[in-house]
């Protein structure tokens, strides 16, 4: 869903050197095509300028001099020039779009890759919708800058300059007279482009306000109705909406004045050409053909000027998007990510699976500590169950072991080596995690088990078989090829668990973290899942967070957490004997499972 954030409104700095420089670096990757494009535009402009001249020439040397052959010759010449120009323009359009698309793709991929490297804490602070907008709409706005913006404006400038030059070449005096309105035209254009720019920005801002107000009101409609706020909110919406309407009408008015003003200037210029052209004609200083060509030229100068003013808004939007995209690219990636740290320490060759937490302190966003000096040890191949109330810090243990979050104090050792010295990608290959909410990707069941790695079907089926879940795959309409709907909505809670268990076994980590969901699962699946978990944890060091007694009882060791601190540790028997928190919890779980 699109999010309506007023933060996304245009800030509207038109020209920012660093952004332009950055953008240029992307175009420079395609400098050959870009230069070709400009050459093509230049050539097309020349041909465009030839048209009226040739038509005038045909009048002067063909019609006026009654030379039929000349008329035909010029007509054919005109035809070939126009044909060539049309082909050139089409090729040039394609070429520039091609560059634009490639730049867009580069930007999008680069941003996407960059987002992959950002720390999890970044995603806690930034809503998904905002990041998606960066990847989609903002980049699209930049693409538009290339495809519909820069080159078109360059072409427009070529035409304006070309027409002026041609007019002077044909007849200096008439050119001077005809173009004496040009300064006024430019003045009008600059004046209105400023007004239009401001109005456009206001429109964007006000539209964003409308949308965010609307969005909020739709989401909170029940509250509005409960508190009888319908009328009041209608009034507020009315004033927000009216604001927008007035801004739009103002914008329309600018155009309603700007366009006719340009038209009138143009007419003035034509009238001047008519009058002064006649004088020159009568004094035999000017041919009819050139006079006619002048009409065409002065007409042709008008469109590019208007076009440039209209392009202004695209530029402005693109600049704001560029600022946001490059701002996101500047976010720093998580520590030690993707640099294979052979420099820092040798990659672990063989992992035994010993884990040790040494006085670990953790805080998220510098608020209270969620883990306070936690220490514990897991011997290779052993399993540890962590129990505790919600918010006791269970999930934090798993988060810091995979370095999704960093610890503040203390150390975590893996086979006696500090995990800070292990490259993150390798660490995450060693430590595999099944998290509470099972995330399924859109794709097939195969994709969700293999996680898009190339694993043979045979391997996948073996894995499933190993877990005793073949039955589940056989039940699926298309076996491994069964499509998983968005977020797995076509699968039951049990089936999702199956997938996540098969996934972890296929991933084959040395150390396993299992953060089990408390969802309601039918008894048959429940038994299957328990069984599968047993198989997965066998001979693997594992940390298990579970609400199921049977799972906890199967663990070698139990750790009881409370407010981020260890309160009890031991085997089931020893803990039951101490009659502490664990024994109380045990009763609670026991009762819950009997209900």
């Amino acid at each position, binding site marked *: 869903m699109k999010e309506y954030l007023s933060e996304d409104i245009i800030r509207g700095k038109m020209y920012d050197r660093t952004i332009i420089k950055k953008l240029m670096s992307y175009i420079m990757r395609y400098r050959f095509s870009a230069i070709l494009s400009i050459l093509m535009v230049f050539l097309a402009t020349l041909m465009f300028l030839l048209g009226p001249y040739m038509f005038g020439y045909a009048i002067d040397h063909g019609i006026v001099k009654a030379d039929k052959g000349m008329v035909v010759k010029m007509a054919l010449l005109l035809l070939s020039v126009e044909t060539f120009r049309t082909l050139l323009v089409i090729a040039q359009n394609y070429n520039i779009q091609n560059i634009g698309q490639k730049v867009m793709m580069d930007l999008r991929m680069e941003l996407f890759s960059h987002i992959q490297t950002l720390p999890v804490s970044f995603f806690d602070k930034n809503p998904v919708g905002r990041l998606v907008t960066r990847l*989609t709409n903002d980049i699209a706005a930049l693409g538009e800058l290339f495809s519909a913006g820069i080159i078109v404006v360059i072409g427009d400038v070529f035409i304006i300059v070309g027409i002026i030059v041609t007019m002077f070449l044909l007849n200096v005096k008439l050119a001077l007279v005809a173009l004496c309105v040009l300064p006024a035209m430019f003045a009008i254009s600059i004046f209105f482009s400023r007004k239009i720019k401001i109005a456009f920005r206001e429109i964007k801002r006000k539209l964003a306000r409308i949308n965010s107000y609307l969005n909020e009101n739709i989401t909170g409609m029940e509250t509005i109705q409960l508190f009888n706020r319908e009328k009041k909110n209608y009034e507020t919406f009315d004033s927000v909406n009216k604001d927008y309407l007035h801004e739009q009408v103002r914008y329309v008015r600018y155009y309603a004045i700007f366009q006719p003003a340009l038209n009138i200037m143009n007419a003035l210029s034509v009238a001047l050409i008519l009058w002064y052209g006649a004088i020159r004609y009568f004094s035999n200083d000017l041919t009819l053909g050139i006079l006619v060509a002048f009409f065409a030229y002065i007409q042709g100068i008008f469109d590019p000027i208007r076009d440039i003013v209209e392009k202004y808004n695209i530029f402005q939007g693109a600049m704001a998007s560029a600022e946001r995209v490059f701002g996101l690219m500047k976010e720093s990636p998580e520590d030690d990510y993707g640099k294979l740290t052979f420099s820092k320490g040798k990659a672990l060759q063989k992992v035994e699976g010993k884990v040790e937490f040494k006085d670990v302190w953790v805080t998220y966003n510098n608020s209270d500590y969620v883990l306070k000096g936690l220490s514990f040890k897991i011997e290779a191949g052993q399993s540890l169950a962590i129990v505790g109330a919600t918010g006791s810090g269970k999930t934090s243990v798993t988060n810091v072991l995979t370095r999704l979050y960093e610890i503040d104090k203390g150390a975590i050792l893996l086979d006696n080596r500090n995990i800070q010295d292990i490259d993150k990608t390798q660490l995450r290959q060693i430590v595999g995690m099944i998290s509470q909410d099972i995330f399924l990707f859109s794709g097939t069941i195969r994709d969700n088990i293999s996680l898009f790695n190339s694993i043979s079907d045979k391997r996948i089926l073996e894995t499933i078989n190993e877990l005793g879940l073949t039955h589940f795959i056989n039940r699926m309409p298309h076996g491994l090829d069964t499509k998983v709907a968005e977020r797995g909505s076509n699968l039951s809670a049990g089936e999702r668990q199956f997938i996540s268990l098969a996934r972890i076994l296929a991933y084959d980590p040395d150390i396993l973290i299992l953060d089990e969901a408390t969802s309601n699962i039918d008894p048959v699946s429940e038994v299957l899942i328990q069984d599968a978990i047993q198989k997965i944890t066998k001979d693997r060091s594992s940390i298990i967070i579970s609400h199921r007694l049977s799972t906890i009882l199967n663990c070698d060791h139990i750790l009881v957490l409370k407010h981020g601190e260890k309160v009890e540790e031991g085997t089931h028997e020893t803990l039951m004997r101490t009659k502490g928190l664990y024994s109380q919890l045990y009763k609670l779980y026991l009762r819950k499972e009997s209900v």
Partner: protein
Amino acid sequence: MFFSSFFKENLIYRVFIKKYKKYFILGAISLIIVDIINIVPPLLIKEVIDTLTSHGSITKILHISGIYILVSLVQGAGRYFWRMYFIGTSFRCDYDLRMAFFKHIETLSHSFFRKYKTGNLMSRATNDLNAVRMAVGPGMLIGLDALFYFFLIPPIVIYLSPKLALYTFLPLLLMPYFAYRIKNVIDKRFRRVQEQFSNISEKAQENISGIRIVKSFNMSNQEERTFSRLCKDFVNKNLSLVIPQSLMGPVFEYITYLGIIILLLAGGNMVLEGTITLGTLIAFQRYISKMVWPMTAVGWCLSLFQRGKASMERVDEIMDIKPEIISSKSAIKNIRPAGKVEFKDLSFRYNKNEDFILRNISLEITPGQKVALIGPVGCGKTTLVNLIPRILPAEHNKILLDDIDINKIDVKELRSHIGFVSQDTFLFSEKIKNNISFGNPDQFDECKVRECASMSMISNEIDNLPEGYDSYLGERGINLSGGQKQRVSIARALAINPRILIFDDCLSGVDARTEEAIIKNISTEANGRTLIVVTHRIPAIMDFDLIVVLQNGEIIGTGTHQQLSERDGLYKSLYENEVVRESLAEG
């Protein structure tokens, strides 16, 4: 095709002409004036050329130049007016539609919002309304303009020279054909581009929401591969769209030039033969260029209408939904309830083909009573309390307030006596104080706000904010924690001075001590208010007058804490669970 769709298109009549007939007429008049005058400049140029070739007087040319400027001034004024009347008014229509849409959804209730999600409604209120505006504003304008051109220019060129008109305007007829063919290709490919764009967007959404998994399983390479495949595909689809798109403009220009070349050949010959003057030839050149616009406009205008119509249907789909809760005129307006709430054999289900959520609920709550609803997740507690302020519709005579059927009471009146705090608190991005006095915006009372905040145990935290009660909430303001939001929403419910207060499990984010304090505050300050609380935390409501235990939509027990905990059963086990749980969490 064009005419029928224009006239049958009642969209334009409905949205624009009906309401703004005057503007429509004025706009149409200015447009027609502009278009008529549009014929004149080529004729003036013809006059000048003919005067020059026949060595006429310079004064005549001066006059013509003067007329040329005059004509363009009138035209300029006309252009100003049609733009304001057509395009300006189209924004008024847009405003009208948006307000009507807003007003309408304000009357719709729970079942509607269950069916239509926010994103869906937003897209109708933004994209669809814009498409409608584009149809009634620019669409209508372009259509009319093209229409006038078709009526005005051909007669004048035929008048000037029928033969030349036939030769030169013939190739122009290629244009609509070509436009039509190419438009279809563009539309088809454009849709493919759009689809691919949303695929990219979905993938990005998926990747970012699943970033933890992506990181834990070192999936970024695979993800980049997938994303890059999507992007490449997007590039290809875009480039396949570029081909027809970049043909459009140049080909039209080319066809125009074909007309001009024919003009040069045929017209040149005719000038030499003396059938037409050179001036006529030049005038023709101008008219040919002018005909390009209406030829291309037809296709454009039709597609704007098509999209507008489809969008209007989507908007109408919402506008045609009848509100579930309508207050008839005979509804009771002024009640002064004591606060007695009675359920009489109430059953409820969302749909005829769904299971009952509540079954045969009978319960009487006397004024001033403190009642707690207890039961496992999904037992129907929330549904039950939602029926009281008519968030959900109850059948007649099943729920009574002070012995009056709540369906007979004006819904606004009913709600003004109920302070309802729902499970998922929703606060608005306004100042905190405005959020608290949300239910009485017209009589803002700072003291009252502070009093309610302090009863809800949130006043200290608000005072500690840099801007206190003036702090803005939401995206651009401060972010409150879940528990803080819940307490603000309790203050908001207190601020309307309700006779009945309903808390629907709205203290989950508040620690047990604060919860107890809030409930105590409200009980002591209650001055005879009825209090209905849905909760999991039994210790907080142990001293309530009545505790109702629900399971699977039925009442399975009522009584005081004392009475219920003496019996073995759901209540007792829930209570014991809760005690253990709290001792674990609190210690």
